[in-house]
Each structure stands twice: as C-alpha cells, then as structure tokens.
C-alpha cells in the first residue's frame, strides 16, 4: 500500500493547482493581473472581497443560493424518505419500472427543459421565488436521494420494524424515533448530494429567477460581462462559491467514508 501513496497525492495536487490560481488571482489588483505574470500576488489586496461584501447585489446572491439549496434539500429528503422505505420494504405493481423511470429524469438535458420550465413556473405564479428553484431541482435530486436512501434502508434488518410494532409503536413514531436514527449516515450522504447538485446547477436556477431569487453564480456571469474584464472580482466571487461546499464536506466527511461502506450504494 505504502509505495502507491503517491498516486492520490499527485491527484490531489492536480486538483489544487487551478484552485490555487483562482485564490491568487482574487488577491491581485486588476493592474497586476493584466500587467504580467507572477506566481504570488506582489501587492496583496482584499479589495475584491471588500466590494463583494459591501454590495447588496453580490451578497444577496449568496443568501439566495443558500436559501433555495437548503429548501431543496429539505423537500427532496422529505419526499424521498417514505418512497425509499416503500422501495426497500415492499414489492408493489411496477416498482422496478418506476425506479428506472425516476432515474431517467437525470438524463434529460437541462438545456432541453429550460424554456418549458420558465413557462410552467410563470404559469403557476412561482417565477422568481426560492420555491421555484427548489422544486425544479427536485427533478434530479429526488431520484438520487431515493436511490441512496433505499440502499441504506435495505441494510437495516426487517426485524427492527417488526420488533417496534410488537412494542406498540405506531408507524410514524417508529419511523421518526427508531428507523431514522438507524439510517442517520444515509440521510447525511443523501443531504450532501442534494446540496451538491443544487448548489452547482445554474441553468435552471438562472432561467427561473430574475431579481429576488437570483443565484450568486448568475450574478457573477452578469458582472463578468457588464463590467468588462474584472478578473480579480470574478475570481474572488468564485473563491466564495467554493467555501459553503467546503464547509458542508467537512461536516459530512466521516459520514461519507463510513456511510458509503454501510449502504449498498
């Protein structure tokens, strides 16, 4: 094992180089960026970050993104938990086909659906709200959550359910008090994936919002084009979009290693 340790190390270095460059660019002045090449910032400046934190259009972008991502994670898990339970415990008409159909929804190119989504959410009066983006992201997050949770639930022996009924638990009580704690790791992993795919998706989020729910990534695109060539600002905003993700991974790091091992994946 020891002599192969260099493989992951080299891979991680490869992953870090572009991120390092993004951070370096965010700490340089525009003049320095356009003036020439240097590996480290010569005149360290936090101006780009200062601009972002003092301009409401910028920082509201972050608040908007985090709001709809959280909402989406909650909705996806709430809907996926009972469904995953049904798939793992019961056989019913069409269950296998249903499962594959759910997965197929990940295959539709978001590009294809952008315009119809805009019309649909405008028609039901949800356009430019957090709920619109949160619901739209359910399209790919629910199938994934059902699939992950089903794996975890199937690894919990059925005797647990039966013992609980014998002890006089009602189904909802059993589900919340006994079953959920025993698949905690699975819920963590599913939540992580929901957060991840909702956070990184931009096409639908951008299509479904205009002002009040505009995601940070969309604010970036607009700024990049309207303000010309402000690479430092763009880089700083990019760095800030990495941070929430990094925090989330840090919290679920143990679940991911242990959690995957427990679930059937």
């Amino acid at each position: 094992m020891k002599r192969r340790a260099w493989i992951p190390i080299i891979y991680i270095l490869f992953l870090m180089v572009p991120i390092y460059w993004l951070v370096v660019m965010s700490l340089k002045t525009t003049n320095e960026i356009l003036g020439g090449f240097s590996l480290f910032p010569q005149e360290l400046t936090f101006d780009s970050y200062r601009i972002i934190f003092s301009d409401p259009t910028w920082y509201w972008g972050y608040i908007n993104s985090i709001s709809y991502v959280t909402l989406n994670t909650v909705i996806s898990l709430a809907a996926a938990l009972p469904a995953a339970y049904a798939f793992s415990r019961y056989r019913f008409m069409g269950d296998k086909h249903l499962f594959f159909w759910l997965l197929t929804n990940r295959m539709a190119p978001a590009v294809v659906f952008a315009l119809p989504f805009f019309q649909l959410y405008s028609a039901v009066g949800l356009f430019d709200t957090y709920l619109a983006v949160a619901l739209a992201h359910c399209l790919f997050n629910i199938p994934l959550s059902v699939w992950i949770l089903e794996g975890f639930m199937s690894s919990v022996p059925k005797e647990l359910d039966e013992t609980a009924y014998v002890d006089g638990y009602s189904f909802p009580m059993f589900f919340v008090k006994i079953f959920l704690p025993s698949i905690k790791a699975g819920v963590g992993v599913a939540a992580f994936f929901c957060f991840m795919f909702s956070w990184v998706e931009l096409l639908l989020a951008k299509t479904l919002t205009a002002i009040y729910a505009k995601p940070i990534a969309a604010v970036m695109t607009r700024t990049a084009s309207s303000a010309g060539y402000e690479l430092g600002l763009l880089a700083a905003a990019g760095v800030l979009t990495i941070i929430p993700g990094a925090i989330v991974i840090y919290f679920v790091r143990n679940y991911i290693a242990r959690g995957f091992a427990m679930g059937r994946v």
Partner: protein
Amino acid sequence: MKTENQKAWLFVLPVLALVAFNALIPLMTVVNYSVQETFGNNLFFWQGLDWFENILRSDRFHAALGRQVMFTAIILAIEIPLGVMIALAMPRSGPWVSVCLVLMALPLLIPWNVVGAMWNIFTLPDIGLLGYFMNNVLGVDYNMTQSPTAAWVTIIVMDVWHWTSLVVLLAYAGLISIPEPYYQAAKIDGASNWSVFRYIQLPKMKRVLTIAILLRFMDSFNIYTEVFVLTGGGPGNSTTLLSIDLVKVALGQFDLGNAAAMSLVYFAFTLLVSWLFYTIMMRDEE
C-alpha cells in the same frame, strides 16, 4: 424477503407528484413544439414530423452529435480507469482518509459556470498559470481560442479535473465494503495483486461502477455550462457539442420547432444508451 403491498404506492406518491410535475409537463411542452411551426406572436401551425426528418438528415446535427459522442467516450475512457486506480491506491482506514476525501470532493462542489470561469482564468495565454507555463516555459504554442486541438485538450482536462473524484468516491465506497477476511484468504492462497483485483475487488465494485459509469455518461452527454463558459463552442465550431448547438438553435435563432425535435432525438438517444447499459450490467443481479 419483501412483502407484497400495493399500499406502498401511497409512500411513493409525493415523489411521483413532484417528479411528474417537473418532468412530464415540460416534456409535453417540448413534444408540442416539435410538431409545430411558429413565426412568433404565439401563432402555431401543425407541421407533423417534418422537423424530425430535417434533423435526421442534417449534417450539422450529425456533426454536433458526433462531437458529443466523442467527448463522452474520451472522458469515460480516462475518468473510470483513473478513478478506480486512485481509489485502489487510497489507504483503507486512518486519519488521511478524511483529508483525502474532503480535498477530492472539492471540485464537485464548485458551481459549473465557476468551473468554466476558473479554467478560463487558468489557461489564458499570458496571464493564466497553465497558459503561461505552456507557452513560456515549455515553449509549446498553446492558445485555446485559436487551436481546436488545444480547446479539445482543455475541455477534456477540465472534465477530468472536475469529475474524476465522483468515480473515486464511489469506487472507494465499494472497496471499503469488502470485509478484511477476503484479503487474508487471498494472501494465504498466494494470490497476485492482479488476481485480487480481478476476482475480489472488481466484482465487489460492479454495482458502484455501473452507477458511476451511468452518472458520468448522463452528465457528460448533457454537459453545457462548463464548456460554454470556457470555449463558447469555438474556435469555429470545433467544441460545439450537441447541447451548445441546441441552445444556439433554440435561443439564438429562436427556431423552436427545430430545437424541440432536436431535444427529443437527443433525449431518446441518451435514454436508449443508458437503458441498454443498465440492462446489460444488471442482467445477472438477483
């Protein structure tokens, strides 16, 4: 053993409702557009299957589809073996595992347009680290905006950078689920590294690898944002993948019928390949 229970449908109902709302209604809208012609003003005329005939004969569609297939084939051929190799080289337990996983998962959590913007900054000829290094240190003429080869290499390296970690995470999850006694037994039998891989690790990873390949296929076949931000489909049409071409037709030319028919052919193609692959891989399960 699972019990037969039709009431389980009630548990699935919320999921069905949410996914159907998001999937069926937009899909029907697209189908509706695909058989009509419009000249604006919300006036639509019945067109039948003309759009589909057009597309299936169009060289432009074939070229874009060809580029999309080539892109997906290349990145699958790189990312799957690379991901498995890295997962095999990772320690099975210990303090470094968490650190590795956190660092590796980082690219997965960056918004897709930021990934594109970041690689753009990284590869700019005189300002970017990679661009500067290639041109001024190695002396290779590297300019993404002029050379199709450079553009292709860049989008592939970007995708490998972005997504290999997903394969690593899934493969690693499959690997650590193998109980230690399997390895001890293999050691006693004097099995080589290759036979351990071929007869213990690979079969145990089959399920996760199926999922990894399926996810990577679907996502790379539908890739849009990253490539669009990085190259805009250029230089010329060299990196205009099917998704990028589709947006050009739908929003650039506002050719709704054509774009909708294109979308459906695109979707059907993805569905067919995924279904074939899923069926073949799952054939001998259960």
